[in-house]
Each structure stands twice: as C-alpha cells, then as structure tokens.
C-alpha cells in the first residue's frame, strides 16, 4: 500500500492518472457516451441539472455516474490513506458564484478543460481555440494571484460536514437507479421529478455500473496524484513546475492513441460531436471558465476530488456548477452544435467582469 502511495505521489502520479483518463474516456464513448465526451465534468453536471429538472432541455438530462464516482473514489482514497479532512470557510459564497460562471463559460465552449483535452485527442480542432482561451483565462488568474488575490483560508470542520457531498452523491445514485416518475401532463410528457433524455447526448451513456466504476477508479487515482487540468498550466507558468502538466500531455497522447485504436479519431473543424465551430466564442467561453477555475484553485474534476476528501468549499463550487448549468440553459446562455446561445456572449462578458471585480477586490493586505 505504501509503495502505491509513494508511486502516485511521485512525478508518475499525474502521468498515470492522465493515461487512465485518456484510455478510459474513449472506451466510455465506444460503450455509449456522446462523442469526445467520455468524461466531461461540465457537460455531466449539466446533464445532472437537467435530470433534476433544474433546466428542461430534453436532450441533455441524465444522472451521470462518472460524477458520482469521482467524489466517491476520492472519498475512498482519502479514507484509506487517512487524508479525509473536513474543512470549510474560505469564501463559500464566492466559490458558488465562481462555479456558476465557470459552468456558463464551459457551456459556451461545450466542455470543461477535461473535455477540451479529450476533444483535441479525438481530432476536434475547435478544441485548440478552447484550450487557448483556457490558457488566457488561467493567465489572467495568475495575474490576480500575483497581485495578492486570495479567497482566504479554510478551517477544520466537524466530520459531518465532510460527508455531505459524498452522501449527496449516494442520493443521486439512488435517484439514477429509482428514477421516480410522478405522472404525465396532458400532452403525455413526464412531469418528473427525474427527467432522462429519450434522444440526444443525454440519452447516450455507457452502462451505469461501468461508468460508475471508471469514475471511482479515476477519482481514487486523482485524489492520490492531485491531478488537476487547470493547475497543470497554472503551475507551469507560475511556479515553473511541470508536475501536473505532464499528466495533461499523457492524457492527450493516450486519448489520441485510444481514439485511433477504436476508430474514433476524426480530425477536422466541422460536424464534430457536441461542438460548434465559432472560434471567437470557443476561446471566450473557456477564457471565462479558465479564470473562474483559477480563482477557485482548481479544475472542476479537482473540485469534485477535494469535495470527496471533505472540502466543503469545493463541494459548494460543484453545486454552483450544477445551478449554473440550470441558468445556462434556462436563460439561453449555453451553446449548441448550431452555435452560441442567444445570450451566451453577454453572459461571458458579465462573468468576466464579475471575476475581474473579484480578482481585484479579494486581496489580503
């Protein structure tokens, strides 16, 4: 056990995690997940928001077991290695807002940083502009960090607080399996409370137990290796530290090779799965997401792994993402394969303005 611990804490940890994600994500696609969406924390949280009826876009509603697995896998690793440490109190309200705006930005691009790298590994060249936007957003976040930006410290909390997110995830798993239905309206449409897509990306999913297993496995590895798709670029620039960045390179190479093997590598800009080709707003959406993730201290996956080891503030961020997804679809902010939503561009500008205000005002003397 201690040799596993040492190995995953070494420079190989993020690389092994990146390879695991790069290999398993395309496998999940071949087992039913949407194209280039083996794992996407933003899209999957959005599907969960839809399944809970927080938005009513009929094609993106499903309780994704991968998200549940990320939190529970991290919980298991944290318990086994005695790193479960309940804590909270570092500006939770602002973290909630950052989660909302990170989600809104990600849904303008159509993917979180994980999916941006997976899209690249699948030959979707639109991802290049998303990743450039992500880098720009992280760069802006670094400027604020250098100016003294901080959401303040957290404090140890009672054990019960650390269990809230894992228990919520178990609750989601129960709702996935039970899928309660209270009836149908006059037109014959289900009235919920749980909604599952009958067509579109929400209807495309790998068998739940496999998806959950992959989520738990990745959550376990990532908790041990501190894998983070935003910290990777941030630490490379800010600290000249490539520890996490090597994990991203491994992810992209593994995803590329695996997509080749599975016949899923389809290079080009047009007609890519669950993607649009609007260069400017692929860039802009991810710039907002990158800034919000950087101010919050990590990518959406990392927030779920932290939530699994007891970090209540990361849990609040993850809940902010789910609520943000509800807003993104109800207010026509999210893009679709046809292009940006009616108010997506305005939302990105508002989100950037709010993040900049936060970046300038949340400073320690």
């Amino acid at each position, binding site marked *: 056990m201690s040799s596993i611990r040492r190995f995953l804490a070494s420079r190989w940890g993020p690389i092994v995690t990146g390879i695991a994600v790069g290999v398993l994500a395309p496998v999940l696609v071949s087992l039913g997940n949407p194209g280039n969406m083996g794992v996407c924390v933003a899209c999957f949280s959005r599907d969960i928001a839809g399944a809970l009826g927080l938005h009513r876009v009929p094609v993106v509603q499903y309780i994704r077991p991968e998200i549940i697995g990320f939190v529970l896998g991290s919980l298991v690793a944290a318990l086994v290695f005695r790193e479960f440490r309940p804590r909270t109190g570092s500006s939770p309200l602002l973290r909630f807002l950052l989660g909302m705006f990170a989600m809104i930005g990600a849904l303008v691009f159509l993917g979180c940083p994980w999916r941006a790298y997976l899209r690249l590994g699948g030959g979707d060249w639109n991802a290049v502009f998303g990743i450039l936007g992500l880098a720009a957003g992280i760069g802006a976040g670094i400027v604020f960090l250098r100016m003294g930006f901080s959401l303040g410290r957290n404090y140890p909390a009672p054990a019960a607080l650390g269990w809230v997110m894992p228990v919520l995830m178990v609750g989601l798993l129960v709702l996935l399996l039970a899928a309660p239905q209270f009836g149908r309206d006059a037109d014959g449409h289900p009235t919920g409370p749980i909604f599952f897509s009958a067509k579109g990306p929400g209807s495309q999913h790998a068998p739940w137990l496999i998806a959950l297993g992959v989520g738990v496995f990745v959550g376990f590895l990532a908790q041990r290796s501190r894998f983070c798709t935003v910290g990777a670029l941030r630490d490379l620039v800010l600290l000249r*530290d490539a520890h996490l960045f090597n994990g991203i390179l491994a992810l992209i190479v593994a995803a590329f090779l695996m997509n080749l093997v599975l016949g899923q590598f389809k290079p080009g800009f047009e007609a890519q799965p669950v993607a649009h080709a609007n260069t400017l707003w692929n860039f802009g959406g991810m710039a907002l997401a990158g800034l919000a993730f950087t101010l919050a201290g990590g990518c959406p996956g990392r927030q779920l792994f932290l939530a699994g080891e007891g970090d209540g503030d990361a849990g609040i961020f993850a809940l902010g993402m789910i609520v943000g997804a509800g807003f993104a679809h109800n207010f026509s902010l999210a893009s679709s394969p046809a292009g940006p939503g009616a108010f997506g561009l305005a939302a990105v500008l508002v989100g950037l303005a709010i993040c900049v205000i936060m970046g300038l005002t949340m400073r320690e003397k």
Partner: protein
Amino acid sequence: MNENLVDARGRSCPEPAMMTRKALMNAGKGVVIVLVDSVTSRDNVARTASLAGWQSAIEQQADGSYRLTLTK
C-alpha cells in the same frame, strides 16, 4: 525570525507554494519554516523548495498539520 515563518494553513492552491517561493527568494539562504495543513500543500511546498534548491524536513504536528523546515 518571524519573517522566515510562513503560515499557509487552510490556503487553496497555489497559495502555499507561492508564499513559500516568495519567502525563499526573500531569505536567499538559511532556514524558512512553513506550516500547512493538507498533504497536497505539504507535497507542493516540498516540491517548490526542491525546485529552488532547498532541502526540506517534514514533521507532523499533534493537530495533524505539517511543519516543514526548509534549509539552504
């Protein structure tokens, strides 16, 4: 002595590493003490110190936090 004590407990990434890097640069050489309370921060601080050519010794405190003694 106080100048060489960094209390990074409870901080989000990448603050503990940034605070450490700044303290190491200000000190130039000698001893810098860093307090953190997560294993992630402990490892990040140790790696930051090592990248800057400092040695680190780690002690776990009674309350579960870590005290890193960085020397050069």
